[in-house]
């Protein structure tokens, strides 16, 4: 009969369509990756992402590793490593006891030192403005709404401030930078501590949310009169001004390398889980920038990629730190480095 080849053709088409999946999958396994080395995947803090991004090329050159890092926020990074979706997580906020339990045998290792800049967009005002903790808390609580408010003027005598409305930009995702910033606000403002508190995400009374440090920087860049917070790299990279913050000794410190190093001297002993707190350091550190923070890599103590992870992390806390200064990350102090290396050595397969 005519067209007797048709059923064969139809069946072949259907079979080929279904086989396409199998073929693609099997050849994909054999397809040449550009870098025929181990892939190390990580996710988390956008705060540290500029530094980790700089590591991709040199670590590939040194060991042939293909480093993949997604800056999805500290909270998401912790979630990702907990579910072992990635090889390492990165968080600026130290893990809580509950998170350690959920992570089931994870190690927390400080691997970078940075600062959270409070950046702002105020065209017409050239020099960097002064700011202190209590006033900043009032701004973020929505109690101070214009730039020429007396509280701000008092900190900046001689500067003519416009009457522009203040627009707040905060993080919409779970963020270690938020933790660092709210930790600071809680320590300088009892009102903030009781009403809002600190965490990787809080109930912001006012403002718009941006996703990631980039998102906050975007909001601030696009809105005259805006104030936001992010790692200092994002402020500089996007040509945004930032406040010099009054520390406990009364000086106005900038979020530069010196300010970070001085702040780091205030806590030289990591706790049992290697967490350090250097927010709002005491007055005997006159150059300390009060909103500095260590940031941590979270790795499982037992991993099939143990050898590669150890190599990568040893490199990160030593050679990797040399890439920091031009991105406004202060190399971690010796005392912290010793602890970090001891912890890295614990990773086993």
């Amino acid at each position, binding site marked *: 009969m005519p067209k007797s080849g048709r059923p064969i053709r139809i069946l072949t088409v*259907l079979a080929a369509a279904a086989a396409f999946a199998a073929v*693609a999958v099997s050849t*994909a*396994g054999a397809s040449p990756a550009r870098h025929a080395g181990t892939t190390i995947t990580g*996710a988390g803090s956008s705060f540290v992402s500029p530094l980790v991004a700089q590591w991709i090329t040199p670590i590939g050159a040194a060991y042939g590793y293909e480093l993949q890092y997604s800056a999805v926020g500290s909270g998401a990074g912790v979630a990702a490593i907990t579910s072992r979706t990635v090889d390492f997580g990165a968080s600026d906020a130290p893990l809580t006891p509950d998170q350690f339990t959920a992570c089931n045998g994870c190690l927390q290792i400080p691997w970078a030192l940075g600062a959270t800049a409070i950046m702002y967009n105020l065209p017409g005002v050239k020099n960097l403005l002064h700011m202190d903790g209590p006033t900043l808390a009032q701004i973020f609580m929505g109690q101070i709404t214009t730039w020429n408010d007396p509280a701000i003027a008092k900190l900046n005598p001689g500067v003519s401030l416009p009457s522009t409305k203040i627009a707040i930009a905060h993080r919409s995702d779970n963020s270690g930078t938020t933790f660092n910033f709210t930790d600071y606000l809680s320590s300088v403002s009892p009102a903030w501590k009781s009403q809002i508190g600190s965490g990787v995400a809080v109930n912001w009374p006012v403002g718009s949310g941006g996703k990631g440090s980039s998102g906050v920087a975007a909001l601030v860049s696009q809105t005259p009169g805006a104030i936001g917070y992010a790692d200092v790299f994002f402020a500089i990279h996007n040509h945004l001004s930032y406040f010099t913050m009054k520390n406990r000794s009364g000086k106005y410190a900038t979020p530069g390398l010196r300010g970070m190093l001085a702040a780091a001297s205030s806590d030289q002993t990591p706790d049992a889980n290697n967490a350090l707190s250097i927010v709002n350091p005491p007055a005997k550190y006159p150059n300390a920038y009060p909103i500095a923070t260590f940031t941590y890599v979270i790795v499982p103590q037992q991993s099939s990629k143990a050898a590669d992870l150890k190599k990568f992390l040893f490199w990160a806390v030593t050679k990797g730190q040399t890439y920091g200064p031009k991105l406004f990350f202060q190399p971690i102090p010796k005392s912290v480095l010793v602890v970090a290396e001891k912890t890295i050595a614990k990773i086993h397969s």
Partner: protein
Amino acid sequence: MSAQGLTGPGLRLDRLPRRRRVNRLMEGLAWLAAAIAIAILGVVVFSVAQKGASELNLNLLTKPPIQFSLTNAPQGLANAFAGTLVIVGLATAMALPVGILVAVYLNEFAPASIRNGVSMALDILNGVPAIVIGIFVFGLLVVGSGQSGLKGAFALSCLMLPLVARATMEVLALVPNSLREAGLGLGVPQWRTTLSIVLPQTVGGIVTGTVLAVARVAGETAPLLFTSSLVGTQTSWNPYHALQTVPVAIFELSESPDPADHARAWAAALVLLVFILIASLAGRWLATRSRTKMLAR
């Protein structure tokens, strides 16, 4: 259906000028509405075209992105385009056979009650928001074992399935029963009749449905956020890993402060839009053409 106001007092002749004015006003508003629709589409497409064209170059397709580039080294979205090809391709491979088989069952074998039930299930599936599909696949496949391009493809195939099935059902229904009767009358077994006589008539409609389904999912972002978003910058064709895709890349770039990122987002959006528009228009042209062919029989 009542013809309200169409008799007696409603049609008074002395009110004719006023009625004519109202009529002209309404017609004018309808023209205005159409003009607004055209204007909106024009503005969107024009924005994408204008802003995208400036950054559109071969680098976009061949170079990987560089996170926080401190130099002006050329970068692009090669990983995203590769990933979209892989994931959409796999999704089509998953949805197409199942969709055709479902349509064959419903049209050729199923009693009316089952047909209505499964049809309703397909319509419900079509109406589930894409983000809920993302949550579903995340909970089913990703939790505990990680993301991958395959899981993203599965999520997209859930969105494609109702479209392919419905398109196939429509063309199967158009195949005249005389064809089936002829086959069976000649002694051809039913399975062979279906596969060799009936289905070949529907190839045009199936292709149309598939093309339209591909156009629909090529731009889908939400399910991929849950299944294939933790990605690196290198181009990979391996579906066992999470792959970057064009819609997710556009989504991430759109929230960046860097105007260079915005430019890349516009360019990628332009490529995506052109692809989807060509696919949609081709799909609809094929649909009218095959329907005319079937009805002319």
